[in-house]
């Protein structure tokens, strides 16, 4: 079943003023249940605008956005939509407000008008999932956590609503490599255990490749590439044209080519690279200079 279906979506900020800005220009996109889609694109290409349409925060100006078959323009369904599509914003830690972590995580479930036991159960589950054990963190103030812990607490606040679709806007912003790795693992775990469909916006191409089944590249409000990481990053000309970085391993492949060692352009993981190099060595009779 199609979890998300976007047809001919166009969005213009500050319409009819001199600062008018076309953020989305005719976007068509379908995402199936169970898919992990990463949206990439240079700064200002419209990624955030696109994902904010998914839970009705931005109303479609022209075009239709359907979530599980129901258009987001359906006013009666707005509340349910917010619970079905969990949205984690960039720097989510800046939205924490309660005096304890547990209360903050409970904010969403409370708004869902769940029973007290159910809320409690969900808060425990969400906190344990994101790696903030309930016993240790429940009564602590969210403002006294470390940056990484705050982010986890904020993610728990979204997860506690047990959404069907998880949307993350730049979940890695401002994290060090270890933090990136931790959140990457967390996102995978959440996909496995809570929300089968994930849409993630990121500038981090390594994580994009590692996590996603499918990559959608935006440029000036239009979708310019849509396919598996190998397909999208295999086309180096396009990637360069729309101003994107290439993943680390692909950079190594390019660098090797400059040195006269041509390998397959669709190599994206270290393992693939190692086996390709070994094969290359065999072919060339093992002068091993790599």
């Amino acid at each position, binding site marked *: 079943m199609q979890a998300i279906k976007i047809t001919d979506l166009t969005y213009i900020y500050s319409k009819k003023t*001199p600062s008018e800005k076309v953020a989305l220009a005719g976007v068509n996109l379908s995402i199936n249940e169970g898919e992990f889609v990463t949206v990439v694109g240079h700064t200002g290409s419209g990624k955030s605008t696109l994902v904010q349409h998914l*839970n009705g*925060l931005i109303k479609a100006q022209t075009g239709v956005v359907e979530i599980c078959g129901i258009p987001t323009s359906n006013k009666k369904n707005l509340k349910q939509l917010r619970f079905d599509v*969990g949205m984690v*914003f960039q720097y989510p830690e*800046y*939205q924490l*407000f309660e005096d304890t972590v547990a209360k903050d995580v409970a*904010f969403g479930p409370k708004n869902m008008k769940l029973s007290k036991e159910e809320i409690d159960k969900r808060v425990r589950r969400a906190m344990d999932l994101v790696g903030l054990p309930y016993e240790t963190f429940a009564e602590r103030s969210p403002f006294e956590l470390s940056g990484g812990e705050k982010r986890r607490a904020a993610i728990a606040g979204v997860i506690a609503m047990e959404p069907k679709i998880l949307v993350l806007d730049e979940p890695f912003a401002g994290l060090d490599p270890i933090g990136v790795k931790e959140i990457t693992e967390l996102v995978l775990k959440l996909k496995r255990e809570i929300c089968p469909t994930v849409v993630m916006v990121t500038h981090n191409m390594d994580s994009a490749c590692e996590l996603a089944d499918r990559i959608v590249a935006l440029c000036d409000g239009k979708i310019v590439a849509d396919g598996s990481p190998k397909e999208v990053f295999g086309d180096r000309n396009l990637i360069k044209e729309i101003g994107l970085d290439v993943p680390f391993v692909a950079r190594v492949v390019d660098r090797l080519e400059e040195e006269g060692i041509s390998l397959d352009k669709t190599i994206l993981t270290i393992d693939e690279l190692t086996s390709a190099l070994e094969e290359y060595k065999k072919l060339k009779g093992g002068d091993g200079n790599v």
Partner: protein
Amino acid sequence: MFKDVSFGQYYPANSPIHRMDARVKLIITLMFVVGIFFIKSYFGFMLTAALLITIVLVAKLPIGSVLKSVRGVLFIVAFTALINLFLGGENGSEILWSWKKLVITVSSVHTTIKMVLRLVLLITGASLLSLTTTPVALADGVESLLSPLRLIKVPVRDIAMIMSIALRFIPTLFEETHKIIAAQKSRGAAFDTGGPLQRAKALLPVLIPLFVNSFRRADELAFAMDSRCYNATDNRTKMKVAKIGLADCISSLVMSGYFVVIMLDRYFWCGLVDTLMFGGLV
């Protein structure tokens, strides 16, 4: 929710008015605000309206952006108009309509019309300043105009710095408010349902992070300024030095002319022009 904040709504355009020195614009606006309270005749209001329309045209402002600031005070204008309509008449004026104690007279109608004109023109005129001047230029202008106060130990530079920082962060705060509202809405927060108490409580999830973030940002900014050895002494120079240009001279002349005519109209012509123009109507 916070989209229609017209205060400090700078409208970028390339016009002589936009390029004018902020100090001149501030003084001119001050003259205009003072002048408008001396107007008693319809002629004066027409002259003012003509002046404002000319400025709007020269500054290439769209009418919509100018009217938006009037829309914000429409309620106050309507309220004042209503009070004036029933209470603003002079004794002995011809009665047009009455019901019990409520009376509308010819003179109260005139007072009301003039009141409304005065308010609308005042707001429009004042908004022209913020529409054509960036907040930073305004703060610089105020600093420059207040600089004589330094002689009596008023920390003008510090005040100006505080002002420009405050102005600089208004858009940031709005953007941030917007983001936090979006984030809490995504967790199912509702801001427009329930009674007044419930609504006030619904604002907490927005206000608390907003305050926390503001303090954090203020801290960071202070730290950044400190590590760049910021202090408000005479040694600080300006990046953009304001200069008086042709447009400033012309507009000062026009404004002085306007001011003189308004004063003449009030104290020497005494409504003569109105009588000439409108005959027995006034």
